[in-house]
């Protein structure tokens, strides 16, 4: 082989330059979202180490190939074959052992990082997360007065233990700013620990395909100071008995996830908006029309498939009668009597005027 040493020396220099350039480009193009949890710290360090390894290996292979393409191309008129050699056992062993040691090293490191990001801290705040097609419901078992919420409010700098379960199909809890992710299963609880460390607003995004409206299975998350969190808890804990019928209805619309698909301001969502709906004349799927009155609302909540407004699909669960009865029985034990269906209709007709 002619000039092999010289070729290798040039390539070695180019590989070093190539690694630096690749790493610069890689970190310029590939940005992680803002880090907003304690767990994000070691994970982002690990991302960076991967980017470094990718840059070096990429440069190593690409420089060798580009150099060969340029330097070892057959010149016009040359009919000769290339140098004749079959391999090099020492080289093969080297490029088996070095990657082997590298990946094992990465693996051991990753196992330690995994232990850190899943570690349990004292004084965890437990929150129940329920995923259902296509909304998130949260509750705070340590604070029984706080009902179900569709917004997740978290105190900053305290570890949160999310106890998650699905009502129907698989879902996955992902807040990109928190980095970690965990699926939700029906009939089985899964746990995810997060320690938010940056006050702000984020979104939980369902990451496991869960059917029709998977893309819009989002909920707001607010990370707030401890003082604000306590204030929020107090605001949530107003006794249901002291609320007006319309206020109760508003609470039910949130708790049972109605507002995941029905807006009150005319925004188009999976279900008809409630703005201006009460008393309106709506044409139906399959022909005909109906005047939206209390009877129609009642029927549409209990039997969603019976009379569908034109242009919408029959995707609303038909399980609310049972859910309402369960909730009413639960509240009756604490001495509060409610009629969820009636209060909900009260609210819808109020916002729908």
């Amino acid at each position, binding site marked *: 082989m002619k000039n092999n040493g010289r070729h290798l020396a040039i390539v070695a220099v180019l590989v070093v330059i190539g690694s630096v350039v690749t790493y610069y480009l890689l970190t310029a193009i590939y940005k992680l979202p803002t880090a907003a949890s304690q767990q994000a710290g070691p994970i982002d360090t690990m991302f960076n180490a991967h980017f470094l390894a990718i840059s070096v290996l990429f440069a190593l292979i690409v420089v060798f190939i580009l150099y060969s393409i340029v330097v070892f191309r057959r010149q016009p008129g040359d009919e000769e074959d290339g140098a*004749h*050699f079959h391999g090099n056992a020492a080289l093969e062993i080297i490029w088996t052992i070095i990657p082997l040691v590298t990946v094992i090293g990465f693996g051991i490191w990753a196992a330690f990082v995994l232990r850190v990001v899943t570690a349990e801290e004292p004084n965890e705040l437990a929150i129940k997360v329920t995923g259902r097609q296509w909304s998130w419901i949260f509750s705070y078992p340590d604070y029984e007065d706080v009902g179900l919420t569709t917004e997740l409010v978290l105190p900053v700098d305290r570890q949160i233990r999310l106890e998650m379960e699905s009502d129907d199909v*698989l879902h996955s809890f992902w807040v990109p700013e928190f980095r970690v992710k965990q699926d939700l299963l029906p*009939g089985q609880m899964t746990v995810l620990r997060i320690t938010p460390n940056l006050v702000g607003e984020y979104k939980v995004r369902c*990451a496991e395909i869960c059917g029709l409206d*998977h893309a819009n299975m989002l909920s707001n998350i607010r990370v707030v100071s401890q003082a604000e969190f306590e204030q929020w808890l107090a605001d949530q804990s107003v006794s249901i008995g002291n609320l007006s019928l319309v206020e109760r209805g508003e609470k039910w619309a949130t708790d049972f996830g109605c507002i995941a698909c029905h807006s009150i301001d005319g925004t188009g969502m999976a279900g008809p908006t409630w703005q201006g709906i009460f008393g309106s004349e709506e044409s139906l799927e399959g022909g005909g029309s109906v005047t939206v009155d209390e009877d129609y609302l009642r029927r549409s909540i209990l039997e969603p498939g019976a009379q569908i407004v034109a242009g919408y699909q029959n995707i609303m669960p038909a399980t609310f009668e049972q859910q309402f009865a369960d909730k009413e029985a639960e509240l009756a034990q604490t001495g509060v009597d409610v009629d969820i269906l009636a209060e909900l209709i009260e609210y819808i007709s109020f916002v729908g005027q």
Partner: protein
Amino acid sequence: MAVGIGIGFAFVAGLRSAQGLEPDPDLAVFIGGLLGAVLFLLFAGVFSDWLKLAGGRDVPLRHGPPEHRPAWTRYFSVDYNHKVIGIQYTVTAIIVLLFGGLLAIIFRLELVYPGMQFLNPQQYNTLFSAHGIIMIVSILLGVGGMINYLVPLMIGAKDMAYPRLNAFSYWVAVPAAVLLFIGLVVGGWDTGWVGYPTLSTRSALIGVQFFLLGFYIVGFSSIAGSINMVVTTFTMRAPGMGLFRMPIFVWGALAASLIQMTATQTVGVALLLVLVQRAFGLNFFSPPDGDPLLYQHLFWFYSHPVVYVFVLPGLGIISELLPVFARKPLFGYRWIALSSIAIALVGFLVWAHHMFVSGMDDSLRVPFMMATLLVAVPTGVKFFSWVGTIWQGKLIFPTPMLFVLGAISVFLIGGLTGPILATVPTDMHLHDSYWIVGHFHATMFGGFVFPFFAALYYWFPKATGRMYNESLGKLHFYLMTPAFWVMSLGQMRIGLLGMRRRIADYDPSLGIEQTQLLITIAGLIIGWSVLIMVYNLVASLRSGKVAVRNPWGSRSPEWQIPSPVPEMNYDQPPVVVGDPYDYGLADSTYVQVAPATPGD
């Protein structure tokens, strides 16, 4: 086939009404679809010889083109010649590839802007689900095409070991593809190609049942085809061709077939259990009695190794073509051959890396992470050996060589973005994000699509006796390769920023709109470039220059006989007298081939 489906529907409807039950569409699709597939194969003639043999009649194997019809009709009927079957596989693969690509382009256009433009979520979900499984069918067919056409030629055999089973392997994929297509037009499905319960068991969409059944039936094609391939390789090699003197592609094909032969059954079970859960109400996967994670284990026990089925033959093509165009021996033949086997074996022990955040037992994460990282080692051996092969060569760059180099560049992107998914902490962020989409497409394009296109150009003169158009081939390459880099690198960028996979709409606050537009433009360029290839190959069939016997100066046995290849390949089995890749060694040959009769 329609008759069979109709009979099945009528049978189920009659039975249900006789019992006074509501009609059950899931049951009807299950029974009707199976019956339709069987009747299709029966009337196509796939079973004819076997039925006669079972009846005690002696049936000689039919050779050559049909007697009373034009020769081209053999490509549209049951034929037992491996080259005909190989071309049937390959052409079907390209057609299915175009269709699957079209689906992707439709939903990529939807993603150009946030908000829903011209699709509704139901249509979007159907399109990406169908894109996934249709592309997988296409790749399986493409792999089948390359293996069927090339392996008997490369090992100096007259045909595959079981020609009738070979025809069955191809034809059984046809009703499977038809069922998938029906599923698409009767309302679609929304489960992705993975079909996870409990979404797949609860979904009211009837397309789910067609999808599961079609996917299930494709499995028969894989199992039968791979058994045939393994037996052929072990029993029909030319005299003197020890295992380490086989053309290197055969090693890749062998490793892929060993996986297909042993792993396909588990996904078959998983799909069948969902099918019967839907059709008969037997519960396997729904709580409290069933377990949705059971499906994921069964599914990935096949569906992870199967990605090596997709890429190992393609990587074999890269290793096969590089020495020819570098005019140099393949660097580290044994290491490359054994790395294919190593990847296949380790590939069986990594399936749960798809389930790091699924809720499976936490203690499984670290062992599966370690096993997954090990895959990087034999994959690295391949890259280093390819570099060793072109180093100090005399490189020439016709279209197949360009696609081989493109394949290496793209597979490098796919390979290097894999370990970051293997380490659990980083995977907790990337899992189910668009990063996966970018990584996966890079491995599939680098490991299958680019090498497949290289193979199409490289063996086109062998199969047809004519050359393709070199300028159009290069145009195809220079459009597709940079477009693909932009596409997959863009997909990974937005995934890192929070773009989830399988979503019909995305949040503009993620700041990913410009990249989304770039990805779609790149996808369109890839689509057009593939159409240029199709035009090139079709037009060259008639008007291409007549090919010389060995246009690439290859040492491989198939290039020592006329093009197109005679009906029975070799008059006498070729005798192996040297190593396959001794380019540059004066006066050496790989095989001695007896003079053959001219092609028909």
